[in-house]
């Protein structure tokens, strides 16, 4: 699923590494890494938790773009 994100920038703004962010949202470091690379689309619950920690809206962090658009 083509879900683009700028999670890495938001994470850097908060001064968190992947491990720390993962602990705060209940995900592993590998999951955060895969999300940032665009290789995994998080569930709604996880996306909301991430947005909450990053103090941003979900739409600001994650964008859905269909192929070709």
């Amino acid at each position, binding site marked *: 699923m083509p879900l683009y994100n700028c999670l890495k920038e938001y994470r850097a703004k908060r001064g968190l590494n992947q491990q720390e962010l993962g*602990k705060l949202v209940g995900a*592993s*470091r590998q*999951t955060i890494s895969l999300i940032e690379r665009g290789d995994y689309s998080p569930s709604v619950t996880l996306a909301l938790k991430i947005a909450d920690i990053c103090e941003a809206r979900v739409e600001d962090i994650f964008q859905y773009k269909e192929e070709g658009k």
Partner: protein
Amino acid sequence: MKEPNLEIRAEKRKVLIKFLIIILSVGVASGSLSVILHINNKELESAFKLCKDWYQEYGWHLSTSFSAALVVSSIYTVFRGNSMCLNLEEEDEFGYEKLERKLNTYNACLTACMIAGITFFLTTFTGSRIGIDELGVKESILCFVLFSTSIFICAFAQRKLVELKKQINPDKKGDALSFHFQKEWLESCDELEKMRLYQAAYKVYAVTPILYLILIVVLHMVSFYFEVGILPFFIIGILWITQTVIQVREMNRLTGSIK
């Protein structure tokens, strides 16, 4: 409105034709194999007898060698895994994934070796040939001691590999030697890890019936020429039914209670 129905019908026809072709091909292949077995019956029977006699004679050598190899490979995988963990850089994302894949592979190899070791040991001392009387007491004790030692060392090596995985994933819980390990490990997995586990489990569920079917067909063909008994058929049947029943029960239990 009719067009989509025609398309669906055409697709169903294609699938049916493909299915019939596969069934016919398997039937022809099995028939051909039966003919080959029948033609070469005597040679195959003597070859089978030779293999059986050789295994009865030297099976315990295989068992002890395998046990020794299992001990060595267990120790090697632990040292190798440990060294890879120590050399891992904190910011190396791909390094973490590579290490986790390696640890999974080592774990799987040790499990496969342990199963093979158990198989070799039990077939060395089957009820149809009383191993101790034929082998001699010293050889039997050596075989047993090596086997037990290899199983213990392998179990502790797998525990150590799990501990290494917990080092790179501190949120993981569970002791590999505990009876509740699978449950605790699953509970400590996040959504992505659970999804991977479920997908891997589904793959096993999808592949094993094909394996059972092939085994049953091959055993049936072989039974015309060699004595295999009825027990293998019952064992495969029980395994197949148990797997299916557990899967259906779990699906029914989870329906309407999504966690």
